[in-house]
Every structure is written in structure tokens, then in C-alpha cells.
């Protein structure tokens, strides 16, 4: 490539969320991308196909989303930061190998630009209907990390965080975007390299004779190795012991699966992230994420103009959910209002944490467009009645 641009396009740009998430991944050092075309995530693949030669990386368009997810797991074990991007139907196909990534503790990033479902649904229109699939979509018990940007700028910023979290906690990290955030074009500031902090891969310092692939210390995250260095690791999706060997027994299962779950629960205080506005003294707190957070802001401002005490909490990391904070708020306020472009998903978490201490109202929207702020305002008034 004669005009190689490098990984980091430092400067001011005007780009959509799909392009921004691709640029964020490149800024994080992503050098392998495997994907399959799907609206509204195709622009992520297209940007990666165009940009990979700039960073000496490889883009491959796989035969389906199952293969895309499989390929990035292989790419990650090959030692390169790897990503794929899809939308609902492809997200469903990726669930099997997402489980393999969780079981084998493979760092990588999966972008889901959500559209309306179920099934083929609304290919070009917005939804936030995969939030529970993100949490529970692959079979078996696990914990996941999922981020929900609400602007192209945040698509860029959180893509870097997603790679860092995936390397730090060794798991696939989900970028739960939505069609509007993916397709909206806004100003994106890409900083200089000195402003970007990258988490390195956790490589063992032990020699092969002393290394066990799934032995962990206090933070419950095992160290990896580079393949081809004589460690002769065995990695399997079967229930396995510290050596990585299959051990299909109840005692090993009851040691291994709780660790996979605990490595996220135990570290949740470091992972959880949200943004609060006007919480002190609020009677009602609106909880939102993704594009809905921007629509909710209008309703919050209108309510405040009417003299109501309204706080706004925006989830940035949606999984793990900020349970402790919601419990705390529930004991201080009258109620929560939770608008989402689905028929009731994250609201279940709010309700669970509120545990009857505060009313919880969901503002439903079956998808295809964002909320009318008036509907959110109506629910704010309803919860105060």
C-alpha cells in the first residue's frame, strides 16, 4: 500500500458509529478482522477491509457468522487482537463460538449493531432487543462484559476499552451498539498515541514445565502463552482442569464454572461504568443506554422545566449491571423510569435491584424508531403520581 495511514488517524473527523468503532479497534491494535455482511453492521466490515492493509493486518470475509466468530478466536490465540461485527441474525449464529470464547477465556471483541427483531426483523431500523441475548444467549452459566456507546465518539472510545477489558479479564467483550448510533454521523476526535492506554496481553513468565493454562491467582484470571513457543498447550471447550485437560466430572465443573463467573463478579467494581446527572435529591431516576439515552435527555430536561426533580443514569457498561448503585438509589428515590427500544429487557435488572423499594416503570418501544420523548415524560409523571 503506497498510502498507508497507520493505525491512529489523529485529528478531527466526521464519521458514523460503524466507522468509528472500526477506527477505535485499530487504535487498540486490532490486526485481524473476520466478518460477514449484515445490515446495519456492514460498514464496520467495509472499513476494516479498507484499513487493514494500513496496519499490516488481515481482513477476511468468512462464509457466515459462525465462521467469523470461530476465526477471531483462532486469531486471538494466534496472538493478534481480533474483532468481528454483526447484527441480530448474525449475533444469534455467533452464540455457539461466543461460548467457546468464554469457556477457553479468549480475548476478542464482538460488535453487535442492533436492529429490530425477532428473526430478520427490521434490517435497516433500530432496536435494543439483544440486551438479554448478550447476557444469556450462549448456553450454560457465564458472565459477560458488554458496552453500549451512545455516539460515534463513544464507539471509538469504547472500542479501545472493549479490547482492554477483553485482554485484562480474558473473555470476548461485546459492543452493544444500535442502528442509530451505528449510522449517525458526528464529530469524532481521535487523540494522539500518548492519550491511548492499551492493556497488554497477560502472558505468563513461567517456563513450559511450570505453566498450567488455567491456573489463576487472586484476580481469578489465568495467564496466556504465545503458541509456537514450546508450551504445547491444550485448549478445549470441554470442562477442563488447570492443565487445560478435559475433566468431565462434577468436582471440576463446580470449580471451573464458578471461577469463570466470579472473575467478572469479583472484579465488577472495576468494570461497571455509568454516567449520572442530577441524581442528588432526585425523586425519579431515568435509566437508559445507547441511543435511547439521548432521547431520554430531552424528556428529563422537559420534566426539570416543570420543576420535577429528575436524575438521569446512563449505562455505559451494561453487563455487568451496576447492581449496588441501583440498590442504593432505590432506597432514596420514588421510582425508576427505564425507556428501551424493546418490550422489557434491562428493566428486569432494575426491578430486580429495586426489589420493591422504588417503583419501576418501563417505557416500551417495539423498535423501528427511537422513543417519542413525550412517552418518557408521561412515565416520569406516572411514577410520581
Amino acid at each position, binding site marked *: *500500500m*503506497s498510502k498507508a495511514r497507520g493505525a491512529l488517524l489523529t485529528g478531527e473527523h466526521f464519521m458514523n458509529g460503524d466507522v468509528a468503532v472500526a477506527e477505535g479497534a485499530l487504535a487498540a491494535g486490532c*490486526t*485481524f478482522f*473476520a466478518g460477514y455482511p449484515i445490515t446495519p453492521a456492514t460498514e464496520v466490515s467495509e472499513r476494516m477491509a479498507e484499513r487493514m*492493509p494500513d496496519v499490516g493486518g*488481515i481482513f*477476511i470475509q*468468512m*462464509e*457466515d457468522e*459462525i*465462521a*467469523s*466468530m*470461530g*476465526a*477471531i*478466536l*483462532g*486469531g*486471538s*490465540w*494466534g*496472538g*493478534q487482537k*481480533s474483532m468481528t461485527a454483526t447484527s441480530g441474525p448474525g449475533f444469534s449464529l455467533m452464540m*455457539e*463460538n461466543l*461460548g*467457546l470464547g468464554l469457556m477457553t477465556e479468549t480475548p476478542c471483541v464482538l460488535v453487535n449493531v442492533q436492529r429490530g427483531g425477532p428473526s430478520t426483523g427490521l434490517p435497516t431500523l433500530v432496536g435494543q432487543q439483544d440486551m438479554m441475548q448478550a447476557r444469556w444467549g450462549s448456553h450454560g452459566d457465564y458472565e459477560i462484559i458488554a458496552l453500549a456507546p451512545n455516539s460515534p465518539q463513544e464507539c471509538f472510545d469504547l472500542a479501545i476499552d472493549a479490547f482492554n477489558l477483553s485482554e485484562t479479564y480474558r473473555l470476548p467483550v461485546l459492543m452493544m451498539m444500535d442502528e442509530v448510533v451505528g449510522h449517525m454521523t458526528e464529530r469524532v476526535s481521535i487523540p494522539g498515541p500518548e492519550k491511548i492506554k492499551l492493556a497488554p496481553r497477560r502472558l505468563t513468565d513461567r517456563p*513450559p*514445565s511450570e505453566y498450567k493454562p488455567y491456573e489463576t491467582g487472586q484476580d481469578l484470571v489465568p495467564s496466556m502463552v504465545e*503458541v*509456537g*513457543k*514450546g*508450551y*504445547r*498447550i*491444550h*485448549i*478445549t*471447550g*470441554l470442562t477442563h482442569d488447570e492443565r487445560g*485437560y*478435559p*475433566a*468431565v466430572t462434577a468436582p471440576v465443573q463446580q470449580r471451573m464454572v464458578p471461577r469463570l463467573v466470579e472473575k467478572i463478579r469479583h472484579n465488577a467494581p472495576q468494570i461497571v461504568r455509568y454516567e449520572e446527572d442530577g441524581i442528588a435529591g432526585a425523586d425519579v431516576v431515568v435509566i437508559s443506554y445507547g441511543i435511547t439515552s439521548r432521547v431520554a435527555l430531552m424528556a428529563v430536561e422537559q420534566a426539570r422545566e416543570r420543576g420535577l426533580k429528575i436524575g438521569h443514569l446512563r449505562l455505559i457498561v451494561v453487563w455487568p449491571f451496576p447492581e449496588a448503585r441501583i440498590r442504593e438509589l432505590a432506597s432514596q428515590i420514588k421510582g425508576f423510569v427505564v425507556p428501551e427500544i424493546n418490550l422489557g429487557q434491562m428493566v428486569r435488572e432494575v426491578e430486580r435491584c429495586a426489589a420493591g423499594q422504588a417503583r419501576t416503570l418501563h417505557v416500551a418501544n417495539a423498535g423501528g424508531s427511537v422513543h417519542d420523548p413525550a412517552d418518557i415524560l408521561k412515565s416520569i409523571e406516572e411514577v410520581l403520581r
Partner: protein
Amino acid sequence: MSDSGSKTQTAPPEPGIVRPAQQHPRDWLLRQDRLPHIWCPTCGIGTCVNSFVEAVHESGIPEEQFAIVSGIGCTGRVAGYVKLDSFHTTHGRAIPFATGLHITRPDLKVIVFSGDGDLVAIGGNHLIHAARRNIDITVICVNNFIYGMTGGQLAPTTPHDARTTTSPYGNYEYPFNVPHLVASCGAVYVARWTALHVRRMKRAMLEAIQKRGFSFVEIIAPCSTLYARKNRLGTGYDLMKFYHDNCEVQHGADTSELDIGFQTKITVGKFVDIEKPTFLDRIQAGQAKH
């Protein structure tokens, strides 16, 4: 699964050292601490592993430069017994995983070792596309005509009329001619042998390992516990005898004529051995133009 902790060896032995009889002559390439394996007596997979470790040894390529990827099923367990960097993935998805591993580490020899159900049924789409792209990996497909791990069900390779637990009145379907499938998709090396042909199988594996591009070796192997029993074909010995009496070596045979019927002649040999730029070669050449 054994957890006996028998001593393991990490390097080839010094010449002249006499090994105890119970050790495999290539035991440093096997995970001794995982033996005995789970395969039934007279299963053909062990023979394939034996030839494979021999081929790895003879290749002269340092062992740490190999990575082996398996899917799910009886043959899917191979990755767990071979002492190389090894990955036991999901059902049918060994090839996509191997594709990612190969692209990010083209210096490694990436081997996919799996069964006919895994590679040709659930993984069929990945198989044809990896062959089409000419991904520089080696696929070793142990074809025993049946799903062994789940108890003897119909495979896309089960010969017409053969009985399985899900074709109790005989298989009505047409089976895949696997060498023809991968050859027509662009594989640069295609061979078929049986578990009887241990030296030829080893040579084919060695050639496939050394080949640049998508190389494919099919090994017809006995499943005495399920396939032979369901079809009243006797023991593993009887199947090996059948191979002995009914295999016809025909190098360069027209791959469209390699169908396998129920207890019919099996054509074996090397069918394809051509040169073609690989996926990564083409990327490199294409990018140089821009």
C-alpha cells in the same frame, strides 16, 4: 480419562536408549498423562494418530511449530492426545478457528484433525470455503462412515443402504464423495487411504504437511463398535481385511469416480497434487499492486 501422571518426555530420546515396551516410540509427541485414550478397541483413529506423529517427526519441522485443531466427535479428541499446541473447538468449527490461527501465525503448520461428521456435515460449509480460498492448512479427515461419539447415527458419508441408529432400514441418501468435493472446491492436495495403509497414510500426511495450500487427506477407518456391528460386518479385523481385499490404489484417479458404496471397492491413492497461490499469497500479491 486417566490422570495417572505417568512421566512425560518433552524431547526426542538420545539414540541407543532402550525404551520400556509400554512406551510409544514417539511418546514425546503424545500426551502420556492423558492415556489411555477413549477410543474403542480396533477403532481406526489411533492408527491415524500413529501415522500422524510419525509424519510430524519425519517432516523435520520443529514440533513447536505445529498447531493442531479438532472439532467434536471421536476424531475430535485427537487434539487432546497429541503433544503439540492443540485446540479442541466446537462441532464443525475447527476449520474457521484454524483459518484465524493460520492467518495470524502463518509461520505455524496448522493441522485440522477431525471426523467426517464434523468436517463434512456440520462443518461442510467451512470445508468448501477453506478449500476455495486455498487456506494454507492441512485437513486430516478420519471417515468411519458414522457418528461414533453419539452412538452410531447417519453421517453424510454413510454408504447407501448401510444401517445406522437413525437409518434403521438402511441409508436412503446419497453419500458425499469427499475427495471429489474438496478437489472441485480447489484443494491443492487430495489423497485417500485407509487405516490399513499405515505407511502410505503417513506419507500422504507428510506430503500434505509440506504442501503449501489447502491439503486434504481422507482416511477410511473402521468403527467396529457401531458401524460394523450395526451392519453385521464382523470385527475391526474383518473391516481391515475388507480394506485389504477391496482397496484399489489408483493415483491420479478421476475424483468424480471415488464414490464409496456399501461394501464396494474403495479407490485409494493420491488424486490431486498441484501448485496454486494461497490465500495469503494472493493478498500479498494484490496489495503490492496498489
